[in-house]
Each structure stands twice: as structure tokens, then as C-alpha cells.
């Protein structure tokens, strides 16, 4: 009984936190700005969808996003390369462009992602090796040799 109470409390708490997160987060998404440019003119944008440098220009670059529109960004281009992922905060202008405030190339991001897969498989292996599922009681228990 206690077990089901904890499951119920956890699900309610996680649902509440998810709803609060979605509605109360402080960052501005670039998609919000593009949908209502007048309202977001001059606002700082912190949230992009996997931003990447699409094309370098003399005074900035074209920002490419996964599942999002490309946007013109005015910025100092020193140290930037086409195809690199970025960390970016920028000021939105209602004409539909951004002016970089803070910019950092996420060097080796692809390597970081692929390297991170190794511990995931390692932990998965440990769990499979050490646990077995008891279908009667519907929980995992340690194997005798663990």
C-alpha cells in the first residue's frame, strides 16, 4: 500500500514540476520572438534549437537550428567556423535578426555525445548483470551472486 502511495506522490510531483517548468521558465525562445516580433524587440534570447553556424559572413553568420528557422546573427566572427555548434545569448530585433551578446563555440560537442554513450552502456550492463525481475511482485531484485 505504502509502495503505491509513493508511486502516486512521485507521479503527481513530477507532473506538477513539469507543468510549472513549462509555464514559468524565464528564458525566451527564438521561436516566440519570430512569432511576435514587435513584442520581443530588444529582448535577450537564450533558447535556440540545437543552434549551429550555417554560413559565415563578414559581420556575422546565419544561425541554423534543428526544426527551426535560420536566422541572421550580427557578431564578431573571429574563432567561428561553419558547422560548429554554439552556446549563444543574443538580442532580438523586430526586423528579424539577432545581435550576439555572448557566444561560445561548443568545441568537440559531437565527441562528447559519443563518448557519453560508453558509460550508459556500462551502467546498463551492470544493471542487467546484477538484477532480475520478479514478475509476481513486479519489482527488480538483486541476483544471488550480486
Amino acid at each position, binding site marked *: 500500500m505504502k*509502495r503505491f502511495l*509513493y*508511486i502516486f*506522490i*512521485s*507521479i503527481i*510531483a*513530477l507532473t506538477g*514540476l*513539469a507543468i*510549472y*517548468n*513549462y509555464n*514559468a*521558465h*524565464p*528564458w525566451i*525562445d527564438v521561436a516566440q520572438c519570430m512569432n511576435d516580433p514587435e513584442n520581443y524587440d530588444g529582448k535577450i534570447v*537564450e*533558447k535556440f*534549437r*540545437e543552434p549551429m553556424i550555417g554560413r559565415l559572413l563578414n559581420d556575422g553568420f546565419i544561425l541554423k*537550428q*534543428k*526544426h*527551426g528557422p535560420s536566422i541572421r546573427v550580427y557578431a564578431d566572427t573571429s574563432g567561428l567556423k561553419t558547422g560548429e555548434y554554439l*552556446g*549563444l*545569448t543574443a538580442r532580438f530585433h523586430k526586423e528579424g535578426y539577432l545581435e550576439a551578446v*555572448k*557566444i*561560445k563555440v*561548443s*568545441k*568537440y*560537442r559531437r*565527441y*562528447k*555525445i559519443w*563518448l*557519453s554513450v*560508453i*558509460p*550508459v552502456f*556500462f*551502467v546498463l550492463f*551492470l*544493471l542487467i548483470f*546484477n*538484477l532480475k525481475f*520478479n514478475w509476481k*511482485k*513486479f*519489482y*527488480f*531484485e*538483486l541476483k544471488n551472486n*550480486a
Partner: protein
Amino acid sequence: MPDLITHSIFNHIVRRFYDIKKNHSPFSGVIIFFYLGTILPDILTRPVYIIFPETHDYIIFLHTPAAIFFFSLLLVQFLNDNIRKAAFINIIAGSYLHFILDALQKQVTGNNFWLFPVSWHNFGYGLFWASQYLSFLPVSIFILIVLELFLRFIKRI
């Protein structure tokens, strides 16, 4: 945030110092939940919003101490009573050490909302960029090997 190998090495080193007296087996029993906790905040969020970036605002809360607490509480309800409490403590310990290492990273945008949902204050102390953790990886692995050899040596004497 640092890669998960760096997270695992950092957490393993911290745990092994605690284990010098307790002498736990490194990778069996409830200790495995410590390593699950180590990677949990990232595996709940990163793969989802890297593949589906539009989900970011729905799931990023799972990378906070409050959400991890409730997620771990939910997770351990699917474990045997005998190990439930110990597994919960191990998952929480692993996850919260993960947050501490994350806080040492420099970031352009905040990601360390330790007081969520009470506050959106970002507890980042900005010492290293993520790419620097990767450059340190060979050193981290070397430290890990030396530590393991040292622990084996002092257990023998």
C-alpha cells in the same frame, strides 16, 4: 555539462575514498545504483532534446535536484524492499555529485537550477568549459588508474 565519462570518473573517485573503510565491491550490489544516479540527470534529458529540440521546455526540469528526488523515489518503488532505501540513497548521491560537477562548468546559458521550483537562480561557478573537461580526460583516466592501484595496494597490507 561535462561528458558522462568525466562524470563517472569523478563520482567513482569520490565514492572510492568513502569505500576505503567500508570495503564495498566496486560494481555490484546496490552500489550499481550510485552509477545509475551518476548518469541519470543527463540520460533523462539530453537524448530527448538533442533528437527532439522542441521538447526542451517540457523535460529540462528533470535535470534539477527536486525532480531527480521524485524520479528516484518513483524508480525505487520497482525494487525489492530490502534494497529500496539503499538504492534510493545511492541514486541521490550519484545524481547530486553530478550536479556539483556540472556547476563547475562555464556556460553561456544557465543550467544549474538547484533551487527549482523555488527559484530559477543559476548555481554555476564557471571554472572550465565543456571542451576542457574533454582535454583533461586522459589525465582523469590516469588518476583513476593510480587510485585503483593504490587502493588495491593498501588493502593487501
